[in-house]
């Protein structure tokens, strides 16, 4: 797989993941901080706020990756590590099976994005390719 394909796939996955995170958090936020914090089957209000911010930044960063911009790759890497760390507790502590599965899926996707962004293409180039 070529480098640009890696980046395109990583950008698509990161964009979808960030958008999904932001939308889910935005849907829950109108319930208010008190109700969310007192609910046993929802993440804390602060976590939702962080997810919105990370989600929106993630969409912009994914666009940066798609445009093969260095800043986009660096920001996406950081956000995906944060995503992995946020998703991890959701696997054992998720209130419903759906939450657990979606957390596991988010973790896998974020890890995949990190791998795609860091995968190095070190295929030896021939002299003819280099001088072409």
């Amino acid at each position, binding site marked *: 797989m070529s480098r640009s394909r890696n980046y395109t796939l990583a950008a698509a996955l990161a964009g979808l993941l960030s958008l999904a995170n932001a939308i889910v958090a935005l849907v829950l936020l109108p319930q208010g901080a008190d109700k969310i914090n007192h609910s046993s089957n929802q993440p804390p209000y602060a976590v939702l706020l962080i997810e919105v911010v990370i989600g929106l930044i993630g969409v912009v960063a994914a666009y940066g990756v798609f445009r093969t911009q260095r800043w986009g790759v*660096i920001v996406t890497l950081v956000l995906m590590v944060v995503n992995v760390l946020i998703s991890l*507790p959701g696997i054992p*502590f998720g209130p419903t099976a759906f939450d657990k599965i979606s957390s596991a899926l988010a973790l896998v996707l974020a890890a995949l994005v990190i791998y795609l*962004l*860091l995968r*190095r293409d070190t*295929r030896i*180039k021939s002299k003819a390719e*280099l*001088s072409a």
Partner: protein
Amino acid sequence: MIVLPDGRRDRHNVRSVRARSARWLAAALVGFILVGWAATVYGLVLIADGLSPANDHIDWWAHVIAVALIAATAVPVWRWLRLSIDDVVYGHFGDGSAAITRLNHQIDNRAPSPPAGLDSSLAAMIARTLNVPYVAIVEGETEAGVVGTRPSDRDLADVPLTYQGNELGHLFVAPRHPRTSLSNRDLNLLSELGQQLAIVMFAIRASEQLQSSRAALVTAREEERRRIRRDLHDGLGPSLASMKLQLTAVDRLLMVDPHRAASLLSEVRDGMNKTTTDIRRLVYGLRPPLLDELGLVAALRNHPSAQAGLTVTVEPDELPELPAAVEVALYRIASEAIHNAARHSGGQQCRVTIEVRAEQVCMTVRDDGRGCPEPLIEGVGVASIRERAAELGGAVEVFNATGTTVRTLVPLESAKS
């Protein structure tokens, strides 16, 4: 980091600050992702051990396994991350236009007219851009620019510097870390920079060749002037002075000894004939008069070798008007080739074909003799043929094809200009 002339290091230079920032960014990213990796591995092992809201009891061996897993994978993961993050932070993104623009600025800022040779500043710029420890620009066998010390523990990337299919040199770059290689992203950038460097190398070579060609022209002109001066001063001058003295003596003897005067006048006549021959030879050296009198084709047909047993045929019968310089060069080249054919080939026929194209003239002189020895050892004659063609930006090929063939290509544009 920039080293100042007094040996101190300028830590506040923009380049140094940028380089240090990039290093810090790379280190921070590696550390952050490594910590994330460790936390994820630890968390996954605990989850596998049955961590849940209902069961917060974790077996001691789960912690041991998690720590062992992290310890076992930390170094390879760190190595992989370091290479990959270096590639992201220092590697080539996009079309490389920024790096090429920097290279062009560097060339603009350091190249006076005529352009000086490549130096280490270009290698330094490449080393800075890619954050690599060693860059060498090799031109032919010489190192035109080197930055850093060649590391023994890594294989150098070799980027050929080619322009119009000609290999002009090589760009050698060491990878950032031991026992690793540069990524294709880096190689792509090096390839693009290499193309620019090759163009610069070509321009420098062309400039040097132009310079030496100009010097050769000036030398040739001065040599020609010296020869004419010598001929006039040492040949014509004394002859005319001697004739003047003889005429003075004739004037004195005319009444006293008419026989002696007549004899002296006869000597003066002989001297004048010799001087006329000398002047002809001098004029012939400047431009063969046959060219003006008969034209190129007829002048070649009347070549002295044609009267010495060699049958010289020239095609075509008519030629379009050629620049004087081309005409003289073709005449002298053909004369030399015909002379060589008559002297060395042992053949009976010599055929001269002149083909005038839009931008160049192609002249082929072919004899039916025994051909030239392989490999060809060029003597003064062939060297002189090459020099005459090269003066007009042309080229000469000498090869065997049922005898010896001398093919000359002379561009018309350069001769006109």
